[in-house]
């Protein structure tokens, strides 16, 4: 009897979070839907959503998608072999290497990006060093390349960790079994290790792609005013122009893109290893 009472009481412990969720997730979402689907006069309309077809906005969205895809691919190319090697070597120093990977995440995101700005600037650290070595200087800042660099730098750990976490859970005997049945190392990788690590890969892709698609800080700091991503457009609508209707409408479009990409990914994600990360 007493146990039952405790059990009932324990449910109330979630109350603070429910309050938080209502105040900071549900209500803002409703507001975005409300603003996004209404005109300034308060009529129901889809004009705000249709604004994505405006050439400037459309160009920003396409560029955002392109840069996010590129940086996600680069993260994947960097992260997978590293996670594989970390898992293969099983060194005692593995946790130390992981610490180094995670370390930048302990510093403020904004600070890290501003640091890159300082490095890449025309008269920045990188060009200063190149000049010292009498090499031609580089013009990286305010290019899409700089934004991709910023995205990869900031989001790479989110690709490495889920892949590594999935790889270490693969039973070595499953790998041995594949070898035992005649598969060489390449076949074992392609038929066993890669498919079994897909949940981690998909989770990593989501965790890099979504923040890359929505970022406006990285593009503002490393892209200057010339390169406008969809995040910047939305930010401007809200903060500079005070047009909540357009901002919300474009946010809804972005949300649709994110939900769509996650739906596509989850179709391949049978094991749903990454669910706990979200």
């Amino acid at each position, binding site marked *: 009897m007493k146990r039952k009472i405790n059990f009932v009481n324990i449910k109330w412990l979630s109350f603070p979070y429910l309050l938080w969720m209502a105040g900071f997730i549900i209500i803002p979402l409703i507001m975005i839907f409300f603003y996004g689907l209404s005109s300034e006069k308060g009529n129901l309309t889809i004009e705000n959503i249709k604004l994505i077809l405006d050439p400037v906005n459309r160009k920003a969205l396409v560029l955002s998608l392109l840069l996010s895809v590129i940086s996600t691919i680069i993260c994947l190319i960097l992260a997978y072999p590293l996670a594989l090697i970390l898992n293969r070597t099983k060194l005692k120093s593995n946790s130390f290497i992981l610490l180094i990977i995670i370390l930048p995440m302990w510093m403020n995101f904004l600070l890290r990006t501003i640091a890159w700005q300082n490095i890449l600037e025309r008269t920045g650290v990188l060009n200063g060093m190149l000049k010292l070595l009498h090499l031609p200087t580089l013009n990286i800042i305010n290019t899409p390349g700089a934004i991709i660099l910023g995205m990869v730098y900031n989001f790479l750990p989110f690709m490495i960790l889920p892949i590594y976490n999935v790889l270490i859970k693969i039973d070595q005997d499953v790998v041995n079994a594949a070898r035992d049945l005649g598969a060489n190392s390449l076949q074992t990788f392609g*038929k066993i290790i890669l498919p079994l690590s897909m949940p981690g890969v998909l989770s990593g892709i989501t965790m890099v792609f979504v923040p890359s698609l929505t970022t406006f800080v990285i593009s503002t700091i490393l892209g200057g005013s010339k390169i406008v991503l969809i995040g910047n457009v939305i930010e401007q609508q809200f903060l500079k122009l005070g047009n909540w209707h357009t901002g919300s409408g474009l946010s809804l479009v972005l949300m649709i893109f994110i939900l769509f990409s996650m739906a596509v990914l989850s179709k391949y994600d049978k094991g749903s290893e990454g669910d706990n990360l979200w």
Partner: protein
Amino acid sequence: MTDNKLINLVNISKSFGDTLVLDNLNLYIRENEFVTLLGPSGCGKTTTLRIIGGFESPNQGQVIFKGTDITKLPPNERQLNTVFQKYALFTHMTIAENIAFGLKIKKKSKAYILDKISYALKLVNLDGFEDRMPDSLSGGQQQRIAIARAIVNEPKVLLLDEPLGALDLKLRQDMQYELIRLKNELGITFVYVTHDQEEALTMSDTIVVMNQGYIQQIGTPEHIYNEPENAFVADFIGDSNIIASTFVEDKRVNILGADFSCVDIGFGRNQPVDVVIRPEDIDLVKPEEGTITGRVTSLLFKGVHYEMEVMANGREWLIHSTDLCPVGSEVGIHVDPYDIQIMKKPESEDEQATIISE
């Protein structure tokens, strides 16, 4: 002599870090034999199997397969297949895809593969499981799939690493019969690793008892059980009374002050030996008829028999008998000469490993 030696392990040594796991091990396995490597955990039996399978390479020594040195050959180029302890099924594939894995690698025709899948599933009594996923199967079913996945490749040797370890008792017994049946139907060599002495006695043609990286004894189940060569084997296989005694002369041994007749000869005169007497080989008789007498100190009903402990000549004797002797009663102990097994006391360092470590 080499004619039917399928696998020959020559002077194999293996250590992990500072721990010596196998020390100069020599062992051969004949064609079509059911060989069991038996021993407590950490005795090196699994390491031996993994060396044969190619998952570990020995620090020293050679693995000879049909006269060819395969020590350096990777697992995928060896003509043997392994059934792993925790099944190691590919969880992202259906049962059919699991079984087809090895055949697809070998680029067999589709018809051949389908044929093999249904044959193998029939063999392990799991018809119709083709499209199930491994996670939806019970432990016993998964293990049978693991066996099916291995045998479709028609290996010369099947290596089994404690395949029944994770199953419950009833299922384990059923699977023992199934494995014997499979072995007879397929006519291939089985190398089986277990720490379960009953499993070993039930299934094997040959048992290799191992402890601390050394082979303690090789023989048929009957031989190992009835004539253990040392105290470790005697203690590990079944229950036994191991008693430090003196070998008086041929066919006479002095156990705890009383002379017993035995059948052994050639241990010298008045030599210290260990004597093994199985609890079921001790006859309880009237006190005046016994070679020695004692008093029953405990009595347990075990179903098939009573398990008694009798204090006699300063030692607890473990006795299995269908006759009931109540606690406190005076009994005589008689042992037939051929039920007394004499073992040499360990002398060399090799034999030191026979010291029982529980």
